[in-house]
């Protein structure tokens, strides 16, 4: 699936629900659906709060499934980029100010199997998230 949305916070719920609906064909458990919605929400929020803070832009989401039942979600922006990716991935680190928990990347890591972050200042950021879906009937790995 492919989805392109404006970087407006009202779209956060639509993005996470769309990816979760795409993954529904693997018959995920309630917890897996919640995990998917959570990491998509974190990644999309990062695009809105950080990447496109001053100038709004588009968020590009693709999702695919592998033969071994792994969901791969790629969320890309053309925003300001991240100066220091390893710093940004540290728990509790945030440039977002009051009431931002600084847990976005930690949650994405914790709720998935693998997280890749590629970023270039002034060009944008691509986050790729991998999650094997066991499903209600225990899909083979």
């Amino acid at each position, binding site marked *: 699936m492919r989805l392109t949305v404006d970087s407006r916070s009202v779209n956060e719920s639509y993005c996470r629900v769309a990816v979760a609906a795409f993954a529904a064909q693997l018959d995920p458990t309630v*917890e897996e659906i*919640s995990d998917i919605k959570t990491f998509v929400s974190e990644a999309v929020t990062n695009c809105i709060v950080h990447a496109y803070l001053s100038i709004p832009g588009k968020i590009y989401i693709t999702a695919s499934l592998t033969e071994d039942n792994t969901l791969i979600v790629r969320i890309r922006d053309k925003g300001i980029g991240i100066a220091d990716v390893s710093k940004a991935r540290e728990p509790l680190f945030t440039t977002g100010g009051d009431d931002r928990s600084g847990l976005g990347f930690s949650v994405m890591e914790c709720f998935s199997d693998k997280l890749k972050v590629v970023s270039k200042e002034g060009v944008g950021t691509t986050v790729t998230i991998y999650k094997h879906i066991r499903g209600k009937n225990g899909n083979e790995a």
Partner: protein
Amino acid sequence: MQVLFKAEKDMLTVFLSGDIDHHTSKNIREAIDSELQRIMPSVLKLDFRDVHFMDSSGVGLVMGRYKTALVYGCEVYVVHMPDTVEKIMRMSGLGSLITFERD
């Protein structure tokens, strides 16, 4: 998303519902903070029983209310978390500052 309040004696209970994310947390925060200022309770209970989705914005929301409540010397409890909410709340480490109650 809807926020309902119940004030009794010096305890304020906040009933949260629906989805808590970056988009909805702003209104929730403003609603809770204005009620906190008005009532100045000594106990704040945040009831999550009708919350269907929450990301780290919800953690930030609770963290921020904890800091605000601390100023008034008000204790904060998080109650009735569904499993999915509890998972993210526990991983955040907030449990070391705030009491979680299941029932």
